[in-house]
């Protein structure tokens, strides 16, 4: 009973940052304890240069258990959210991330490249592009590289993404390449083609519809109308087309389009549940 009470008392009292930090960087402590200690220190990481360097050392050291390295990364990442307080630590942090970006551990590599890519870091972009152009140098899978490159519309990823769409290594990569190209005005014809291709999978066609809405909304409207008038097209994409016209359509033009309204009127009575629901929303906006 007494022991239990002591234990409760002990756990209730938070340990000092110094104590947590000494556990976090001690190789002799169990992994779980170190991970827990690192979770406690984010705000203190940048308080002293010694603590910062110790945490960065843990992240860099390939002999450290990966769980501890990932925890130190998380701790540093959390600290970096306090932009002003982190000012003096940022340069060392970024330098360490660039070193760890080529680490043998794929999870750590991917996370680090993700952080750098969000900073629009030139080093990370260069590595990701190299990997897409030459898979033997790839640090992350192609779909991940494309996703990370899409954080910066000014990266050189459009031409690489187009090549991936033409000759995709896998479906995920094609999907990410299309998402990236959704910011490229010159890709509008590609999206139009994919949207009308009944042999494409529904997700690719929906991505194409969303991209067209961003790039050429008038093209989406005309294509959505054609899709709705084509009874042989799939329910998923017809529901997407209905939503596009209901939410973003040229209200005046759609309201005057009797052929379309008559067709959608029929869809609201027969067809899949999703199509019926979308058709009813369309009709409630544009009337019969």
């Amino acid at each position: 009973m007494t022991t239990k009470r002591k234990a409760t008392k002990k756990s209730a009292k938070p340990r000092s940052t110094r104590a947590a930090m000494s556990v976090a960087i001690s190789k002799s402590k169990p992994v779980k304890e170190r991970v827990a200690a690192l979770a406690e220190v984010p705000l203190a990481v940048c308080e002293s240069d010694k603590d910062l360097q110790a945490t960065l050392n843990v992240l860099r050291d390939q002999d450290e258990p990966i769980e501890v390295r990932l925890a130190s990364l998380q701790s540093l990442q959390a600290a970096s959210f306090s932009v002003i307080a982190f000012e003096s630590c940022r340069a060392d942090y970024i330098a360490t991330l660039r070193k760890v970006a080529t680490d043998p551990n794929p999870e750590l590599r991917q996370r680090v490249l993700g952080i750098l890519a969000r900073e629009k870091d030139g080093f990370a972009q260069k590595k990701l592009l190299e990997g897409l152009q030459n898979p033997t140098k790839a640090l992350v899978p192609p779909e991940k590289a494309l996703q990370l490159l899409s954080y910066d519309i000014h990266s050189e990823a459009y031409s690489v993404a187009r090549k991936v769409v033409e000759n995709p290594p896998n479906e995920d990569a094609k999907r990410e390449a299309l998402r990236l190209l959704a910011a490229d005005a010159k890709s509008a014809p590609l999206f139009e083609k994919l949207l009308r291709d009944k042999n494409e999978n529904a997700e690719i066609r929906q991505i194409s519809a969303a991209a067209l809405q961003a790039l050429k909304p008038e093209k989406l409207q005309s294509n959505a109308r054609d899709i709705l008038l084509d009874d042989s097209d799939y329910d998923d994409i017809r529901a997407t087309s209905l939503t596009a016209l209901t939410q973003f359509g040229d209200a005046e033009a759609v309201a005057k389009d009797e052929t379309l309204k008559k067709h959608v009127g029929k869809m609201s009575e027969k067809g899949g549940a999703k199509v019926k629901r979308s058709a009813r929303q369309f009709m409630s906006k544009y009337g019969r």
Partner: protein
Amino acid sequence: MTELESNNSLSEDEFASLITDLAERPAERHQLIELLHEDHPIYDQRGAATIVRMRGWILHTLSKDQIKDDELIFVLEELDTGIDPYLVAAAAKALRSYPNPKRTFAPFVVHALANIRYRDEPVSFSEYGGYGDETTILQELLATLEWLGESARSVLPELQALVSQPAGLSKKLLNRIEKIVRSLEPVNDSTESCCLRLRDRFTWEPRSRKSCTEIESVLFEDQNHELTTFAEFFKGQPSIVVFFYTRCDNPLKCSLTITKLGRIQRILVQNGFASRVNTAAITYDPEFDSPERIRGYGENRGLLPGPRHRLLRARDGIDSVRKHFKLGVNFIESLVNRHRIEVYILDAQGQVASSFQRIHWDEQEVVNAAIELLDESKQVQDPNSQIGHRKSAFGNTFGLLASIGFAFFPKCPICWAAYLSMFGIAGLGQIPYSPWLQPLLATVMLINLGSVWLRARATERMISFYLASAGAIAIISSKFSESLKATALLGIVLTLAGSMLSTFSGRRQQKELTSH
């Protein structure tokens, strides 16, 4: 076509070798400067990060030798508007290679410090494209502040504010700033005589302006989907034109430009010029920037759209507009990969009369430049008026004759008769002695001097003014003493030289600007 223009498909390694090669040939330094122009073909179809590496390496290479006056604008531009650590660090380093520190530089360095301090990053100049950690952007900026020494006095309040509220600055950097502040605190008179005049504004005289015929029919769509051609909107009255694009990720460029255009519109309204001067913001990225996007972008930044104040996108692409204005922009696919800040003032014929480039411009100065063109429009509309250099040449000649007249003006009626008999023109003996003519000639001489000063200031060649001033002083002194009588002749020669130089330097600058 230069060596570099034919090499726009160079790999980055080849580019680095070429830069090293050019740096070894001092006679080819101008090619390095050419490469700093955003519209250079070498930047076509490259990503923004690649361009940062390329430009940073050029700045670093330039800094190995001394930075020259005409190269400074590229360095200061980066400190003024740059947000990429590598480029700003390269600019800070390059500035230190200028022969001596100038007061003009200090605000740029402090501005860069404020812009970039929360984006500190390791940078390396040991090899092309290197991402090592030999220095950081903040260290480079502080090194430049230290190099400025006494010339940084004007930014002492900003540095003191930084010391009093250091936020997250490291102790090491803070110590360096404190040391700089301490060195500036004892008030010493600066011995620096004058500041630098940056070449961020260009002006074209009416006769040397490029015709806009080639883009008169270019069709624009405004924020409300309304269509207008270049000629319809820009001809008839002066215009202020800025360029931007909504996806620009540098808040110190497009976003700030549009915000400042909003301020310009307010100044025009306050001064009653809103209906007499057009304003337009034209997007570099017309494929993506739909009317809705540009409208939202303008509204969010305080623009006041109206029939004479519009946000525009070129319906058939930006190419013809880009070519006509020689825009400082380049693209990857349809997206801008790099651009400069640029504002153009168009005359009532839609021709570019002046432009402000690279460095942040002052709203009132831009408005003044447009208002000056309103007077010019009146002259153009009046068929009896003489425009441009004819008027100026007439003014100079008249002023010169007035100076001669003043120098030899007789003091009394007897002298007047003596002059006439000396020239043997007895027939003119009927001309009455007119003492009122002397102050009139003196006034015209001073007006001529003023006109030479204005032209000298505009051309940045003050020698003509100094000569004309010396001439005027010599002529006036000759009036006070008989012994100084001979100086009148010297005065006339100096005035003649000053006036002639003023006229020719004005024309020479027009030619330079036209070729630019």
